[in-house]
């Protein structure tokens, strides 16, 4: 790894809370991701993983009181959510939203046009969309269905990866894409991710369980507890966690003096 290269993402001392609360959800988080890397972010429920993912994507509901986030050297926090997407940031949602009455084809054609700053005819786009659906083993009929409406949990997750595949992000954040997937679906999703791994692209795979990391091998594993990364290491860290549970990190943490 070339150390002097500008990181794709650089999070420095990030502090995040809800606007009308005093309690912080993210408490001085640091994270650096370079192109070509796959990072896994693990942590118990409520540790702030989704909040981090949403803040990176520009969710308006959170207040960043301190710290900075650079995406390819630029101040990410000043950008609108759609600008971030067009710049190549992608978030696979833990809970994808339903948009009644809007077909996947109509929605994603618009997204495609914005992401690649181009105009594309409906029929041409349709062909492209079908390829990506197929890759994630989703039926072509999904193209005409309303976005996420009536989808099973697994279909929703798979559809997130279809979108990632279509929009070719530079940095993809996958928020618990593995939860709720059976083993076959998990493999399909992992294949989708692995096929996109490249020296130009990076992934932040947020997960509660080690299971998905059997299929997507991370370069780094971080453990998040109470709004900050308390431990980082290689893939072996995930296995240790699996074995000893999150209480292990917590108890270790209790032993260390706070800085």
């Amino acid at each position, binding site marked *: 790894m070339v150390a002097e290269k500008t990181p794709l993402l650089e999070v420095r001392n990030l502090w995040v809370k809800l606007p009308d609360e005093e309690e912080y959800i993210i408490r001085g988080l640091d994270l650096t991701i370079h192109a070509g890397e796959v990072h896994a972010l693990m942590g118990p429920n409520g540790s702030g993983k989704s909040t981090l993912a949403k803040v990176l994507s520009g969710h308006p509901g959170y207040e960043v009181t301190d710290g900075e986030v650079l995406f390819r050297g630029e101040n990410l926090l000043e950008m609108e*959510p759609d600008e971030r997407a067009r710049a190549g940031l992608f978030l696979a949602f833990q809970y994808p*939203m339903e*948009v*009644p*009455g*809007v077909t996947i084809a109509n*929605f994603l054609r*618009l997204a495609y046009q914005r992401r690649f700053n181009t105009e594309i005819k409906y029929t041409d786009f349709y062909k492209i969309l079908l390829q990506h659906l197929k890759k994630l083993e989703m039926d072509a009929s999904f193209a005409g269905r309303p976005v996420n409406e009536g989808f099973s949990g697994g279909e929703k997750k798979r559809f997130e990866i279809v979108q990632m595949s279509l929009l070719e992000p530079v940095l993809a954040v996958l928020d618990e894409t593995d939860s709720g997937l059976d083993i076959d679906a998990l493999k399909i999703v992992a294949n989708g991710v692995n096929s996109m791994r490249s020296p130009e692209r990076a992934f932040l795979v947020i997960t509660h369980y080690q299971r998905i990391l059997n299929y997507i091998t991370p370069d780094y594993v971080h453990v998040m507890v109470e709004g900050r990364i308390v431990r980082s290491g290689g893939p072996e860290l995930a296995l240790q966690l699996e074995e000893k549970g999150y209480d292990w990190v917590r108890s270790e943490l209790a032993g260390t003096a706070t800085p």
Partner: protein
Amino acid sequence: MAQPDILNLDQDYKQKYGFYDEIKPVFQTERGLSRRVVEAISIEKGEPKWMRDFRLQAYEIFLSKPMPTWGPDLSQLNFDEIVYYIKPTDRKGRSWDEVPEEIKRTFDRLGIPEWERKFLAGVGAQYDSEVVYHNLAKQWEEKGVIFVDTDTAVREYPDLVKEYFGTVVPPHDNKFAALNSAVWSGGSFVYVPPGVHVEIPLQAYFRINAKNAGQFERTLIIAEEGSFVHYVEGCTAPVYAEEALHSAVVEIIVKRGARVRYTTIQNWSKDVYNLVTKRAVAYGDAIMEWVDGNIGSRVTQKYPSVYLLEPGARGEILSVAFAGDGQHQDTGGKLIFAAPYTTGRITSKSISKGTGRASYRGLVQVLEGAHHAKCNVECDALLLDEDAKTDTYPYIEINEKEVTIGHEARVSKVSDEQIFYLQSRGLKKDEALTLIVSGFIEPLAKQLPMEYAVELNRLIELEMEGSVG
């Protein structure tokens, strides 16, 4: 989807529809309403005595009825400021070449002749008070279909007109029905012989050009047994800062086994009071469908109705309203179950934006003896802003035991999470909103012929522009 200019919403209506022609009408009545004005209209039209008497009686009824106060605020509507009859030209064409040049240009600009060539069976075009163009494709004429303006019908088909005119919406029905009955002019007369299916739509386009104009068209559709027709109407007006009044009456008779679909895309400029009475009667196994889209106007009061008179009759009302800044859309529908085994459904979708207010007002009435009537009412309101308002007034009167009536109402706000989801895929905030709104009205768009669905979506896009600060 073309990306419209975000800052110039009203500018855009002005450019596309809001222009006006400097034409000198060949005849117009003096400002305000009086017995003399009513007579002048009738004389100018050279009408038979029975119609003149009908008008004068209606005028008395109009005077005797108080201004309705149960609905939207009509206090700014001044009857004395309106010009009730404006005849733009003496000529009426069956080909566009016969239409005076500047008027033809208006309809060209609105795309009407082009639509006619492409996919319509017939077109009527009304400009202020008079229909200036009317044509029905030969093929339908040969089958005995009649599609003319209502004034022509009074002259050429007096027996049919006398038999049905004012029977579905009598003058004393309400103040504005009385007003229309007194000063009506133009509108369409449609007659479909037994068993004839007019497979492609007939369209009427209504244009107000003059300032402070009143437009009072009168439409009468008679669908004989086993026939079918789809009638579509659209409308626009210039943007003046003074009120104009549109008060139409539409009467439809759907005989046994016939089916009529009546589609409206109302896009009046935001100074028009749109107070319309639309009603149909449906006989045995007949189907009446109202598809009513209200986007424009300052105030609209319109509740398309179906009276289900014989067993097996069905009424469908689909109403979509978009209330933007300063607009009040008071819309809905009425179903009167007057026979056993009749069915119906009202679906209402409204969107309120800025200071707009959308009200659903509906009546479901099951008369004694109408056992096994089945009715479902569904109202969905979508609020786009904190200040936007919506309310529902669902009146249900049931005088029979064995009936099935369902009613559901929902109010939703566009959720920040939904917008964020779409934005996180690269859509701009107002694109995200527009997409959510277009998804919301999709059930209506799906009912429309393709061209109208595209038009409706485009109008919604226009309304959505600049909706995010």
